[in-house]
């Protein structure tokens, strides 16, 4: 296993091709739950967890589909795996770590429809990553999401007290702020080392 490849994947997923700012995956939860810092962080950690697990689980599922010649069932199979996974994680956390379960609250079921999760699984297949690469890509992609949502939540907490033109109040000014953050993240494009 080449460590540099893994490092490259991780760096790409967190900074250069950040899921939010350059691939536009997971915008809905990014906009929806970034009003407060602590809920944003909770959502971010839940996403890391589910994205890592989903990447690991969908790898054998994809092999199985290919072996059976059912490649066209990819989307259906993956979304079912993700939905079942989220449900399982929810039940497991409820039994074993109730404090974490309460902290994540309603965000857990919402992750099923987070396109970053389905996106990372589909991208794994598209890029032809092997098992370890897939898991690394899943976890670091989630980490990139966490970074983006925490940074954005801290900006939004300040935005509450800002005084934009009336038409821009609320959602539009948040989108403009996100656009400026995307501009900052473009600076990482030059970071390709290997």
């Amino acid at each position, binding site marked *: 296993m080449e460590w540099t490849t893994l490092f490259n994947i991780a760096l790409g997923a967190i900074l250069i091709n950040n899921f939010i*700012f*350059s*691939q*536009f*995956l*997971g*915008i*809905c939860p990014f*906009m929806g739950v970034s009003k407060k810092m602590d809920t944003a962080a909770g959502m971010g950690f839940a996403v890391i967890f589910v994205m890592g697990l989903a990447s690991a689980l969908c790898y054998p599922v994809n092999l199985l589909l290919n072996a059976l010649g059912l490649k*066209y*069932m*990819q*989307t*259906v199979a993956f*979304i*079912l795996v993700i*939905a079942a996974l989220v449900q399982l994680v929810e039940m497991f956390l409820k039994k074993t770590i109730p404090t974490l379960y309460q902290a994540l609250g309603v965000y857990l*079921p919402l992750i*099923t*429809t*987070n*396109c970053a999760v*389905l*996106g990372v699984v*589909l*991208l794994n297949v*598209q890029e032809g990553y092997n098992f370890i690469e897939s898991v690394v890509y899943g976890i670091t992609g989630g980490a990139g999401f966490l970074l983006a949502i925490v940074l954005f939540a801290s900006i939004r907490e300040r935005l509450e007290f800002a005084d934009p*033109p*009336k*038409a*821009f*109040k*609320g*959602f*539009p*000014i*948040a*989108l*403009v702020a*996100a*656009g*400026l953050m*995307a*501009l900052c993240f*473009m600076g990482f494009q030059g970071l390709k080392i290997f």
Partner: protein
Amino acid sequence: MNIGKQLKDGLLTQNPVLVQLLGMCSTLAITTTVSNGIGMGLSVTIILTLSNIFISLLRRIIPEQVRIACYIVVIAGFVTMVDLLLQAFFPDIAESLGVFIPLIVVNCIILARAESFASKSKPLPAAIDGICQGLGYTMILLVMSAIRELLGAGTLNGVRVFPAEYAANILILPVGGFLTLGCLIALMQWIQRKVKGGK
């Protein structure tokens, strides 16, 4: 039944993107060229209409507890169908939309309409609702992609309008997506306030 009201809701007062703020990911990601915008908008409209009809037909059979999972399976089936059809007949569009075609499964517009409208109404109104909401979504994609392609690349649906040197490249980049959508939603809020103030 009230087709006019549903159409007005879908296009303006309850527009899925500008007012309900759903389906952000695809709206921001694929509106770099007009042909992408039209392709994506029509695909979503077709899937939304079909899934609305199906879910409305199945509304008495689907058990309450597992309804979200059932909706997702229905939607995923139609998405796969459209994906394969696009690959077969419009390979260029399928190529440039890439991973965002299968991602229609998790497009919140479709799930939101299934949950809030199709699961409570008869097949015909559900179908009309699907078409109207889909058209509202397509309209926004069209407006956004026209703005971004014209100002960002100097072309409109591939036809050159002014030389590329004068184009503001930034609008084609991710930044441009956020800024354009922010301005459009601000415009919508401004109009809504004016209309309310006029009454």
